[in-house]
Every structure is written in C-alpha cells, then in structure tokens.
C-alpha cells in the first residue's frame, strides 16, 4: 500500500485553483522528486498535503486514511513532516531548542532521536547552544531537516532543500536525504537542481500549471528526450 497517495487533487489559496488534478503516489521506501518550472504549483502541492491551504477536490490518503484538509498538529503525530522552502528555522532559538520544537507532538522520550540527528549532522551538535539565526545557510538547512526528523516521521517532505547552497553542500544535503531514506523514512521533495535530484529518485513527477506532465522513475525522466528538452534545459 502506498504511504501517501494524492488522487486528482484540486486546491488553491481562495481564488482560482492552483492545483488542477495532481496525482502522486509514494511507497515507504521511495524518494519522490517533484520538478517543474517556477509557479508550477510544486510548493503548493506540499502545502496542500500539509493542510496549509484548502483542498477542494480529489483525495489525499496517508497510511490509507484520507487526510485532506487536516492540520499539521494532527498530521505530525501521524508521521508526516515538512521542511518549508524558506524561514524554516526559529532564528532566535538555539539549535537544540529548534530540534525540541520538532518533537513538540511527542509525549515519549525523544533523546535518542536527538542523538540520531546529531550523529547525522555533527556540526549541529557543536553548535547546539547557538541561536539558529547565527548559522550559515547550509547549517540552517540541516537544523530545518533535523527539526522535521525529530517527530520520527514516516514521510519527510522537503521544499527545495538545496536552494541557495554551494555545490559542495548540495551534494552533502542530497547524501543525507538518501541516508535518511535508507533508515526507513519515505521522502517527497521539490527540487530545482532537477537533474541531480532525479538521478537518485525512485519516483519523479514533472509538474506544470498545477498538473502532472510526466511521471516515472527519476532516471526514466532524465532519459526522456521530451522531459529533457522542456524541463531540464536540454
């Protein structure tokens, strides 16, 4: 059974719908990558899953249950986590406090999860007492990801995790994503570094004007001459 399945999702911000029938299915072991031009509705798709805008049509099933229009405080305990595209850390709070906020919905002891996050991002352990606002862009992205992992999600959604990072950091963050996935967390991410991300994607979705244009494995999409020509810059 799919971990998450969007069937013909329609939704928007109150005016004309931005999403006009988006279909996405992710298995627990998948890394799903959504690519597409600016304004295609990629971020909007993730926000729709996370209950941050109104879904007016279609269904969103997570773990077999329709969760369309559920709010984050209900979705996070079910195992869904989201790293927004920007403003994704609490700048005035320490790194450790940021992580604690990710575990807000948990009632159990989360110290083991925190140790796991620190093991994955050793630099954060060093800076645990420092305000997140004082970190570099790449380190902030790690804090944001760490925060999202603190709820022990089954599906981690990331909106352009590599945005604004230097090539070295891009590779590092992608490697971390693959590693998180290997530890049993499904991934659904939006990426502008499309070629690089599709290369390790088990599911790829090309979105344009709020609709799926192409769907396949990442390597299939890269190999498709039409996708390459229209969406991957030749």
């Amino acid at each position, binding site marked *: 059974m799919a971990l998450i399945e969007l069937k013909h999702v329609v939704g928007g911000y109150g005016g004309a719908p931005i999403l006009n029938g988006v279909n996405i299915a992710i298995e627990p072991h998948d890394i799903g990558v959504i690519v597409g031009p600016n304004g295609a509705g990629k971020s909007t798709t993730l926000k729709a899953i996370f209950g941050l805008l109104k879904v007016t049509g279609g269904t969103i099933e997570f773990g077999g249950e329709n969760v369309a229009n559920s709010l*984050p*405080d209900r979705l996070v*305990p079910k195992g869904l986590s989201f790293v927004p595209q920007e403003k994704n850390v609490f700048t*005035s709070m320490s790194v450790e406090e940021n992580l*604690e906020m990710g575990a807000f919905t948990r009632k159990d002891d989360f110290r083991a999860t925190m140790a796991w996050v620190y093991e994955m991002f050793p630099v954060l352990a060093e800076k645990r007492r420092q305000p997140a606002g004082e970190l570099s862009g790449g380190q902030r992205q790690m804090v944001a990801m760490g925060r999202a992992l603190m709820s022990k999600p089954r599906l981690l959604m990331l909106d352009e995790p590599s945005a604004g990072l230097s090539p070295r950091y891009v590779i590092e963050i992608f490697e971390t994503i693959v590693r998180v996935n290997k530890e049993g967390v499904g991934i659904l991410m939006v990426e502008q570094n499309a070629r690089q991300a599709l290369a390790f994607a088990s599911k790829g979705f090309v979105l344009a004007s709020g609709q799926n244009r192409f769907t396949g494995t990442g390597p299939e999409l890269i190999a498709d001459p039409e996708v390459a020509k229209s969406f991957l810059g030749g």
Partner: protein
Amino acid sequence: MTELIFFINQVVISGAVLGCIYALGAVGITLVFGILRFAHFAHSELMTSGAFFAFLLAGAFAAWGITAPIPMGFVVLPIAMVISAIFALGIDKGFYAPLRKRGAKPVTLLIASIGVTLMVQGLIRLFFGAGSYSFFETETKDVFRVDLSAFGSTRPLVITEPQLLMIVVTALSVIALHLFLTRSRLGKAMRAMADNADLAQVSGINTALVVRVTWIIAGALGCMAGTMLALDVTLKPDLAFNIIIPIFAAAIVGGLGQAYGAIAGGLLIGFAESLAVFNWTMVLRPLNAILPEWLQLPATLAFVPTEYKLTVAFVILVVTLLVRPTGIFKGASS
C-alpha cells in the same frame, strides 16, 4: 547623608515600585503582541479588573474573619490572578478569537481592544461608581523605618510593607516567567510561535493552546500589576487606564515581543519617572547657606513638574524609536 536617604526614599524605592508595576503590565502586552501580533490596548482593563477582583476577595476574606500577617491584598492575589486569567480567556474567546477566525487585520483587533477597554471600564463604573477605594480601610499599612542615625542621617529609610512585598513578588514572578520560557515545553513553544508562527504550526505545535497560555499569563500578571498599583495608591475605575501610556512605552522601548525587554523597559521608565519629578531642592538645600541671596534655591526644583510626569515615558519612547527602532532587545519593528 540625610539627603542621600531622602533620595533613596523618593527615587530608588518609589522608582522600583513603579518600575515593577510597569514591568508586569508590559510583559503581558509584549507577550500578546509576540503571539497575536496586535497591540492589546485593553491590557489596562485586565489590570484594573484584576485589582477589583482582589479587592472584592480581600473584602470577603475580612468579612469571614480571616486575618493574615501580610496585607490581605497579597493573600488573595493568587486567587484573583486565577479569576483574571479566566476573565482574559473569556475576553479573547468573546471578542478577539472570532475576529482572528475571519482573518482580521491587527488594526481591527487594536480597535476591538479599545472597545473592550471602554466596555470593561463602563462595567466597573456600573458596579463600583466613580469613587476610589482603599485596601487599607480596615487594616493598617505597616511602614518600616530603618533608623540610620548611626550613619549620620536624621531621616530613616522608609519603605511600606506593600512596597517591599511588591518588589519581592515581582522578582519571583520574573524568575518564574524566565524558567517557564526557557525550561518548559510550552514556554519554548510560546517563544517559537513569537519567532515564526507559520513554522510553529508546521512543527505541529498546538497554536491554539499557546494562545490560551498567553492570555492566562497576561491576565494573571496584569492582575498582579493592577493589585499592586491599587495597594500602593488607591483603587479606582481608571486605575490602570491612566498609566497605559508608560506601560506601552515600556513594552516598545524593551522591544515588542521581548519579555525581558519589557521588564527592562518597565524598570527604566519607572526609575526615569521618579527621577524626573524628584525635588532636587531637598537634596541641595544645604547649598543655600553658601549661595548668594539672589541665587537661593526655589521651593521645588525638578526636571519635570509632577503633573507632566507622563511626558517622561513619551520622551524615552521617542528617543528609543529614533536611536534604535526595534527597542533595546531587538523586538519587532513597530
């Protein structure tokens, strides 16, 4: 030495008391602003109604024959704070929450809070009239006089029992608030929401719960501040309405949204006000002996006449906004 003690009595002690009241009021305003992003004008009414709750309870306790070694106002304070917290929650539920649900702008909420101010003040006048009341009609206000003649002062250091208790209670509250904000899960969630409300929601933080806790703290500390003010002066329906300007100034000077800033701002404005109206002649009088006839000191020599005390807060506010628009502790720019 006598002059120094006079200075301490007039400026340091009364400044500290005033500062404590401003600080406790400003903390509520700054927390509400941090979480709900609007200037809660009706905070003065949380303070005044809180003082009236305490007054009624103190009267009831006295009628039941309960006596205590400390002023009754302090004995009933915890209960009055609980009632005020519930009252604040009720006001939010009745007036602000419906507006928020409709996505009202901060200015709409501000205007609604002015409406709440008028309404609550009207209700208080309806029940209590326009007169003033004292917590010390049946009990006496103990005054501590520390004899300092050993140090060559002919004047004792004077502090009333309520003043001493106010300073202690404020200090304890500030410590408790600090521990809450830095140690507890909910306190951290409150800081997170003030920092980035969208991300707090995305993290699964129960934002409705945080809003409720904010009102509970604002109501309880407001009640504390109002009751203290009433214990220091007298209780009347426009008790806190008269000092809402310095309280807002304290919150803005400290950096809106910054709890520690509000405390610093409150103390700053409290001390500045009592320093500004201090009569320097009392200290400088010995100089009259050596000054020529035409340069004798006038009977009162203060930076600001008492009637214009309110301008002190304004001046500090304007200077802060010019020099450091985000306030001392870098809050939201206003």
